[in-house]
């Protein structure tokens, strides 16, 4: 045990002092923050301004629509970023209207124009037809905003036709707002979802990064031939355990630094960037589960990485084998969307119990869904059991592999290694 501690400590101290550690500690959050706030910022900006033209011979309809679109809804005023501000130009259809509008679209002065053709027959229920021509970069939501507004306007018009007083019609058409009231235990699911997704990415990156680090440092020790010196005093198992623990502690330190930084400065930083609606809403349990599943995931993948490192002689050879690490992790990415949308669906329930996917997917379920206690327990049990099995196999491969230089072993050779005592 003392030797494991010595190896782990050396590994930890040597790594934490490197420039690489400082660089990744600073860079990874910057990249992720840039990614998240960048997209939030872009989203809020493009929503805020829209300029459209409405072409119709029915001026009353256009004016009503204009009023509807520019109407402030008091309950939404707290979140101005979510409500696009739409400027509406009214136009009468003329012979060259389409050409003029087309030019304005090309010039970027307009985000789109709505062409309202009168209803073909004069029956009371007949509706005019609407055609919306958006600019290519216009917001997708513009069309649905227009459709909502038009629906309200037409409804009000029809209600007035049927003899309902305009004020009554307005009251009837008042949109219903459901206000979100946070209970102390359950934070706003939207922001929790964002935070959990960020943690998911973080877990993915850190497991991948440090798993590869384990493999790389084994290869480095193989090429520098330090192994023989070490093996003259300690067991290969101790070396492997020390290495995995040491490198893993570096990963934990890094994640810890990030979490502390986020908890201390995250909210104020988000507010300053202007995306005030993203706040870090995490329950303590979600953080605890993060560390549990991070550890399980790291142990699972770094043990595989240790075997890969012991089998190969150079980084290039490692690259050919690292699909064993990348593929299962990447698979979690592929199903991320389905698990996020229905964290308690059958797909999520089954996948989250399969050890290679458990750390990432069960973490999503625990944080966002409602897995049964037995599912959580079973997922941890299965993953721990497979970690033990992997370490058993890996330590055998390791024991023989670290002293093998030269050609990469093939599968039958590796199977034979398992039988060596």
């Amino acid at each position, binding site marked *: 045990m003392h030797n494991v501690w010595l190896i782990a400590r*050396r590994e930890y101290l040597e790594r934490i002092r490197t420039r690489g550690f400082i660089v990744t500690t600073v860079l990874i959050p910057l990249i992720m923050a840039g990614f998240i706030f960048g997209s939030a910022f872009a989203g809020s900006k493009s929503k805020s301004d829209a300029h459209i033209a409405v072409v119709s011979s029915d001026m009353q309809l256009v004016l009503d629509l204009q009023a509807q679109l520019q109407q402030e809804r008091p309950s939404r005023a707290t979140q101005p970023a979510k409500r696009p501000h739409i400027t509406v130009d009214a136009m009468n259809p003329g012979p060259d209207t389409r050409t003029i509008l087309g030019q304005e679209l090309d010039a970027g002065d307009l985000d789109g124009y709505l062409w309202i053709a009168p209803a073909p027959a004069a029956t009371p229920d007949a509706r005019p037809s609407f055609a919306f021509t958006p600019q290519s970069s216009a917001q997708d939501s513009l069309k649905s905003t227009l459709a909502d507004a038009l629906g309200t306007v037409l409804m009000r018009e029809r209600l007035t036709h049927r003899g309902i007083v305009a004020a009554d019609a307005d009251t009837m058409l008042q949109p219903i707002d459901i206000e979100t009231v946070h209970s102390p235990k359950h934070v706003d699911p939207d922001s929790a979802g964002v935070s959990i997704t960020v943690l998911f990415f973080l877990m993915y990156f850190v497991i991948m990064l440090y798993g590869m680090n384990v493999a790389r440092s084994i290869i480095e020790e193989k090429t520098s031939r330090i192994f023989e010196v070490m093996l003259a*005093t300690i067991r290969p198992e101790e070396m492997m355990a020390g290495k995995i623990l040491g490198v893993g502690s570096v990963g934990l330190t890094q994640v810890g630094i990030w979490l502390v930084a986020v908890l201390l400065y995250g909210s104020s930083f988000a507010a300053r960037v202007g995306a005030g609606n993203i706040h870090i809403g995490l329950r303590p349990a979600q953080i605890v589960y993060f560390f549990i599943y991070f550890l399980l995931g790291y142990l699972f993948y770094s043990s595989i990485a240790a075997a890969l490192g012991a089998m190969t002689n150079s980084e290039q050879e490692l690259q050919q084998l690292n699909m064993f690490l990348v593929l299962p992790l990447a698979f979690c990415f592929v199903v991320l969307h389905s698990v996020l949308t229905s964290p308690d669906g059958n797909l999520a329930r089954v996948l989250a119990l399969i050890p290679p996917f458990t750390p990432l997917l069960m973490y999503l379920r625990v944080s966002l869904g409602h897995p049964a206690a037995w599912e959580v327990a079973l997922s941890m049990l299965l993953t721990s059991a497979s970690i033990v099995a992997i370490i058993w196999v890996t330590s055998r491969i390791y024991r023989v592999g670290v002293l093998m230089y030269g050609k990469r072993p093939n599968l039958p050779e590796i199977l034979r290694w398992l039988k060596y005592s």
Partner: protein
Amino acid sequence: MPIVELQHVRKVYDTKVAVEDLSFTIEPGTMFGLLGPNGSGKTSSIRMMIGITVPDSGTVSLFGQPFTRTALARVGYLPEERGLYKKMNVMDQLVFLGQLHGLSASVASKRAHLWCEKLAITEAISKKTEDLSKGMQQKIQFISTLLHDPDLILMDEPFSGLDPVNAVLLMDTLLDLRKQGKAILFSTHRMDQVEKLCDSIALIHRGHLVLSGSMRQIKSSYPRNRVVIHFEGDEGFLRHPSVESLKRYNGTAEIKLRPSATLADDAQSLLAQAIAHARVTRFEVMAPTLEEIFIEKVQQESPAANGRETTRVAPAGVLIDA
């Protein structure tokens, strides 16, 4: 009580017999040479002495006990493939390796400083290992082997790649350690070093022990049938009837005398003839050098071994894989 005792050790890798029925002992206070051509099983034998690999059959005893890992605290091992952490600071590295051998950090650091002074590399202490010259790295590795004051020192090719000054420095250090009663095993191809340093040797070839014993015993078991002559002038005297074979170098002849009961007289008559024809500056009669014994033994072994591996053609013309 022998420090190391190997008894009928056998180790087989997938397709190759690395060591077969190998037995020898190393006594305290001796310098032991493990000799053999490349791939003869030297490294495999050493690895079994320190438990990196386990023999398939036979026993390895250290300090009079069957091998246990606790004995490793008393063993220092310098592998043939030198290895240090390249990015690590020299002193951190030495302390770390010392700690792995059971020293406390402060003791390890104190001894490391002493050793660095002794081997004249104090200027390397604060540097990173990768910034040192190869010879310096080798000295650091040498120190790391000795830091925990082991009673058994195993060195695989310790002098390879060192300049003569440093090689002598390390040899003197090893001789000092022997004087303190340590048992030292080293493997090498350099026979002159073995003759100078070793008290006893084991010569292995293709995994088999071909020769072992104390240096003096081995040497005295061979007749003094070698003659070295340094001379100037006519070399006709080399056609003397008692000369069996000879090697000519510039101004020097190395002669092997024909086996006979009167070797000493044959040598005298050769000397007389030489003086009659040429100007002799040196004349020495001696037992074969270890190098000659080595080559002779290896060559004796080889044809037999080769014969076992070749294919024979049976009388009927059918190929039989032997």
